[in-house]
């Protein structure tokens, strides 16, 4: 059964088109990602799915219901983790969960019973009586996720779940999200981090300027739109375009970035040897596996994070 089904979905703000006719279907139990740079229309899409933003055009159903007429019913089964935490700073950590549960019409006994395990899950048991303001960024994020789980949602919407967190905090968060996924919670997330999309998503769409430019599993997208490996070459020049000539013919495709050349190749080490054999000596060279970053670059001609 598909939890989310969008056909030709549009969102406009006056003359500005934020989402320009996208088709998306998310099945129960799936981890689905919207990948794209800032302003691609990811958040607008998430807000329409969350029934907090009216649809401007096309069709959208969530749990088979129309958000325009069944907003409260849809929200009752959703967990929402917005881009900014928006925790209730006038309440303590535990109270944030208790009160949020009451918004869903849960009884006091129910919320009390769920609060302990959720604090445990968010690794915040020791902070349960702390003032929200005193929490670190990662803790706040985990509390926001725990709060979104208080109604035991079957679908969790996460808008940029790890933006602004340090690497360690991100890994802790990924681990928590991975547990949810294993427990059968359907995750829908937006991100502009490639590694995040590769870690968490079974399937994703790449968005740019309100449109979907590619769709598939991270692996299939890489196979389809990039090569197996990438050779990165860095030269001591102002403009890397000057050096493209010297590596011509070695790679299936060469991408020129401000600070380096990307050579899309099947065998990175082999290509590096060829480069050396031609007498070309870069300042540094790096062989890596192709990632979604490369897919995005290929599809849009721009990198995700400028």
């Amino acid at each position: 059964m598909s939890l989310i089904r969008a056909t030709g979905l549009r969102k406009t703000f006056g003359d500005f088109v934020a989402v320009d006719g996208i088709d998306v279907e998310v099945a129960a139990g799936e981890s689905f990602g919207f990948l794209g740079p800032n302003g691609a229309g990811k958040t607008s899409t998430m807000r329409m799915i969350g029934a907090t933003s009216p649809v401007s055009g096309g069709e959208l159903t969530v749990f088979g219901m129309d958000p325009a007429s069944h907003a409260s019913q849809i929200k009752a089964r959703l967990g929402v983790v917005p881009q900014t935490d928006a925790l209730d700073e006038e309440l303590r950590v535990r109270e944030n969960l208790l009160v949020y549960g009451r918004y869903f019409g849960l009884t006091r006994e129910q919320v009390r019973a769920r609060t302990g395990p959720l604090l445990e899950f968010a690794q915040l048991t020791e902070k349960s009586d702390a003032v929200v303001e005193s929490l670190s960024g990662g803790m706040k994020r985990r509390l926001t996720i725990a709060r979104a789980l208080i109604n035991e949602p079957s679908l969790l919407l996460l808008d940029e779940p790890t933006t602004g967190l340090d690497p360690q905090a991100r890994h802790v968060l990924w681990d928590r999200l991975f547990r949810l996924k294993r427990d059968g919670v359907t995750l829908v997330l937006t991100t502009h981090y490639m590694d995040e999309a590769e870690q968490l998503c079974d399937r994703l769409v790449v968005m740019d300027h309100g449109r979907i430019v590619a769709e598939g599993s991270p692996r299939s997208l890489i196979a389809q739109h990039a090569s197996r490996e990438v050779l990165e070459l860095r030269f001591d020049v102002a403009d890397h375009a000057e050096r493209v000539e010297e590596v011509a013919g070695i790679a299936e495709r060469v991408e020129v970035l401000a600070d380096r050349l990307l050579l899309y190749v099947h065998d990175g080490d082999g290509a590096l040897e060829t480069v050396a054999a031609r007498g070309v000596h870069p300042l540094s060279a790096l062989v890596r596996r192709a990632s979604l970053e490369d897919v995005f670059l290929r599809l849009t001609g721009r990198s995700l994070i400028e």
Partner: protein
Amino acid sequence: MATGTTAAPARHALPFPVAMARPAALVERNLRAARHYWLTFVSGFFEPVFYLFAMGVGIGALVGSVDVDGREIPYAVFVAPAMMATSAMNGAVYDSTGNVFYKLKHSKLYRSVLSTPLRPWDIAAGEISWALLRGLIYSAAFLLVAAVAGFVPSWWALLAIPACTLIGLGFAAVGMAATTYMRSWNDMDYVQLAILPMFLFSATFYPLATYPPALQWVVQATPLYHGVDLVRGLMMGDLHVGLLVHVGYLAVFSALGLWATTRRIGTLLLT
């Protein structure tokens, strides 16, 4: 917007306890938050009581009694209902402007609340109910103090408590609607600009007859005048049909505020 308006018909079909369950969750939230700020809560009681003794006892000693419709009334008895009505207004306005503005613009509370099954109407009803509950406690406490001090001649005064709740409803609803239009804390000054003249001139400190006829009309157009006159009639046991006009005026005032608030929250946050 579309979500707010289309969801509305279902509300009318619900029995009252169910329909109020969602706003009640927000009231519970405010109660919990207030526990951490209980001092502010307690201070709300003292304002009208201080006014009562400063005006009633202090000024009253100079003024003696006032003439209302040919009756001589001790000044404290005259001014006590006005203080009670005014504090109902002030409390409601305080809760529905500054507090609501903070939640709307700074803490983004309503944005996260709207991710749950609560709708704009539930937010309006919840916030206003909270202001009213708080006002109810203050009104009851004030009435008790005034009665013990001997400023309340009639048992009808008990009805002044629900009357103050109605005054609170009107000002909280309209205050919250006004808050949705505010851009910054500076705009809060406009609230004082509206409140202060009403406090001073709504037949609060001297009878309406003091004004020339033309000005009497102006005073009678303001909501606080209706509140003051209603509470005064009840506290002095002076019942007449005119009180129903006051009730009607305040009911319409409240309904307009509730309607506008619900609409505006939807327009601002469900975009």
